[in-house]
């Protein structure tokens, strides 16, 4: 949770940005993604389509981590972009009567474009206005509230409280992803592309620049980096990926409802990232899968139990594991190893 870089070793002169060989996080990512890709061999259609949704939510968590994990600025409004993607897809495919062969691609363009444009406008006003840190979080929180009100209130377009039903399955270039296995691999493909792309890009120079901005924005600006533009670009890219996840999610489930653009979803995605460890990119993917399993069990006990569990989780997270769960587990393991070492 707190930025680990503050406590890391004193600055070294970095001559080679990209270390040779694979980094541990890349190896973990390869193993996890390989395990996920083999899943279609073991589970049946229905479970596979619910895992398709989980993979898209994991992509959504990854998009938040690209911004929050790397810039240290928490966005409480990422559900806005996921929801814009989903509603963009639904409204385009249902309301406009576009040729079915192109409807999904048009919906994708509207969804992703809508999320990116809203992020660019809002981001321009607040990031260039110097709004940072906690203030940014509040403004993005308000953004989700606004977006939710519009989704509920503007019922001629969005279907109001009941949402829109009948989003066609994703289809492009003559391929239809109606079948659960195809749908699963569509989601898997998007997740894999963006996971490895972001690992590669953020593992290099761009990642270092973002870390510099996170640690001391004024210093980074003095060194000649256009920090406001870099932050805005990261925010827009992150929002566009969230929009993409939302758009594909809508084609999978076939309907959209205002809870895809609500505060609770913004909150849940923070939980997924925090459980997996923010800034690690693969962590949020694992976090989403783990928490989703948990949510499934807890919600089946009682409908109200899940918000209570999230509430307690946040309080515990801060009081017991202030550096995030993975750091806590690592420290616990080190302590155990130390204790064992003394005994032998």
């Amino acid at each position, binding site marked *: 949770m707190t930025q680990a870089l503050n406590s890391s070793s004193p600055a070294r002169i970095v001559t080679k940005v990209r270390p040779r060989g694979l980094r541990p996080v890349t190896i973990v990512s390869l193993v996890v993604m390989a395990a996920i890709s083999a899943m279609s061999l073991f589970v049946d259609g229905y479970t596979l389509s619910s895992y398709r949704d989980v993979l898209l939510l994991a992509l959504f968590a990854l998009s938040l981590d690209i911004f929050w994990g790397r810039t240290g600025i928490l966005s409480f409004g990422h559900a806005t972009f996921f929801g814009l993607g989903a509603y963009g897809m639904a409204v385009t495919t249902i309301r406009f009567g576009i040729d079915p062969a192109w409807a999904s691609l048009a919906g994708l363009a509207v969804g992703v474009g809508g999320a990116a444009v809203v992020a660019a406008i809002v981001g321009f006003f607040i990031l260039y*206005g110097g709004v940072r840190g*906690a203030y940014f979080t509040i403004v993005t929180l308000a953004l989700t509230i606004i977006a939710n009100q519009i989704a509920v209130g503007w019922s001629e377009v969005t279907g109001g409280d009941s949402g829109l039903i009948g989003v066609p399955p994703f289809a492009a270039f003559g391929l239809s992803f109606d079948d659960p296995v195809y749908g699963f691999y569509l989601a898997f493909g998007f997740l894999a592309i963006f996971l490895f792309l972001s690992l590669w890009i953020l593992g290099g120079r761009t990642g270092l620049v973002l870390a510099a901005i996170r640690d001391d924005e004024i210093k980074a600006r003095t060194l000649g980096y256009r920090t406001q533009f870099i932050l805005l670009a990261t925010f827009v890219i992150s929002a566009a990926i969230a929009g993409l996840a939302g758009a594909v999610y809508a084609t999978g489930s076939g309907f959209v409802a205002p809870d895809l653009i609500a505060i609770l979803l913004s909150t849940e995605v923070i939980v997924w990232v925090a459980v997996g460890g923010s800034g690690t990119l693969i962590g949020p993917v694992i976090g989403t899968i783990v928490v989703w399993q948990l949510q499934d069990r807890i919600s089946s006990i009682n409908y109200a139990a899940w918000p209570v569990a999230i509430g307690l989780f946040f309080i515990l997270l801060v009081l017991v594991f202030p550096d995030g769960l993975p750091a806590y587990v690592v420290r616990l393991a080190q302590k155990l190893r130390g204790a064992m070492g003394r005994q032998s």
Partner: protein
Amino acid sequence: MHMALSMLLNSLTLISILLIVSMGLAIIFGLMNIINLAHGEFVTIGAFTLVAVQAHGGSFWLGLVVAPVVGYVFGLVLERLLISRVAKNPLHAILVTWGLSLLIQQVLQLTFGPEPQRVTGPFSGSMSLGDFQYPAYRIFLVAFSFAAFAIVTVALRKSRFGLDLRASIQSAEMSSVMGVDPNRTNARAFALGAALASVAGVLIAPLTAVTAFMGVNYLARSFFVVLVGGAGSIGGVAAGSTIIGGLETVLTYQIPPTVAQASVLAVAIIILRFRPRGILPA
């Protein structure tokens, strides 16, 4: 003429509600710099205190007296148990208070049930200004809020507690050397903020549906009031409430209420772009 008068009075109603909710937040967020995302739930707690009081045969006035006490005690306990531990780290404060807000919502919903609660206001009639009729309760609400705002403003300027608070915010170290206990001051200030929000909850209750989730409506707005007005200044709360509340009411006459609320928050974001420290910075 009537239209203008009713627009003015409706604006004043919303402005005075925002004034009290945001004054609590101005102390907690503006002065103490704690991001309290459970502030909306303090409003809800006030409204539900009134529901509980009236369910036991008490009057509105009893509720108006009991609610700030409940809010104050709740705020005091909360500050000691949780908030004081996270006050230094904004991200931790955000997560803890948000978790708290989810918990409070669910506990209230489990206790009182999901259906909206009904409360009765103290006045049912309307007052006439010339040949213009306006609900008496709303006029009371406006007068009460402005009086409360004036009292708290004077109290923060003139009382010993106000002095302690301002001193310990400027420098906790220096003021503790001078004999001001910063822990105690912070706890009391946080509790005061919670008590003000609870009073606002009682005042809102007769005008709206009382549900466990009603606080969310006031959370974003009150943060914007404080940000637009200028964090750290009580005068800014008046300016911020006037802009946010006034604009929203006027727009509601032209466009649907949800779109009006959305446009007001959009305007607030634009104002922040050009005056990042608010209209009347401290």
